[in-house]
């Protein structure tokens, strides 16, 4: 069964550093998403992306966050200057254009120290 692949599985970074989280969505999917889950809390929507642009973003997705689809396969989330409170599990998801089903990746655990 096709999978959404996320790398790395765990990243540790120092506060103030930039991080890039990578996702390879399922090949025929056209909608892409990033969610995050702070330890012990709910899964929160960050941003959705379609047709090479952001279609929706949450209040969490401020100027320090950006997303990009640099080529035909990768979908990245960049955090410019990480804060301690950015420590969380980040999930990527993708969806076919006419489907209502979402496929989630296994997540990247980001630890900011």
């Amino acid at each position, binding site marked *: 069964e096709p999978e959404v692949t996320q790398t790395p599985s765990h990243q540790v970074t120092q506060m103030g550093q930039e991080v890039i989280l990578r996702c390879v969505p399922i090949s025929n999917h056209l909608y892409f998403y990033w969610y995050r889950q702070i330890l012990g809390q*709910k899964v929160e929507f960050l941003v959705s992306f379609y047709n090479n642009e952001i279609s929706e973003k949450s209040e969490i997705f401020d100027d320090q966050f950006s997303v990009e689809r640099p080529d035909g396969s990768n979908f990245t989330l960049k955090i410019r200057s990480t804060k301690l409170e950015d420590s969380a599990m980040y999930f990527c998801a993708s969806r076919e254009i006419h489907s209502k*089903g979402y496929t989630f990746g296994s997540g990247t655990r980001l630890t900011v120290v």
Partner: protein
Amino acid sequence: AQSVSQHNHHVILSEAASLELGCNYSYGGTVNLFWYVQYPGQHLQLLLKYFSGDPLVKGIKGFEAEFIKSKFSFNLRKPSVQWSDTAEYFCAVNWGSASKIIFGSGTRLSIRP
């Protein structure tokens, strides 16, 4: 604002007990409904989904859920739980033409062997 409520934060059951986890969502027209499971240290996995048709949906691992439109509910059930069902369970909803899904706060299920 659209919201998803899971009122049971932590449920503790013995093996073979029956399970029902509540999920309610705010009104917003047509909905697509999901239950995800997150085993300790793992990523989100889809248990079942409802888009239309029979309101009683059967999923993997013996789980089922019932969509009750009049109550804005989509409760998850399992007749007889096993120790391996210990996990966090998330209800998620997508409204109409919206792209993103919104998650409930999750219910932690602990099964006593």
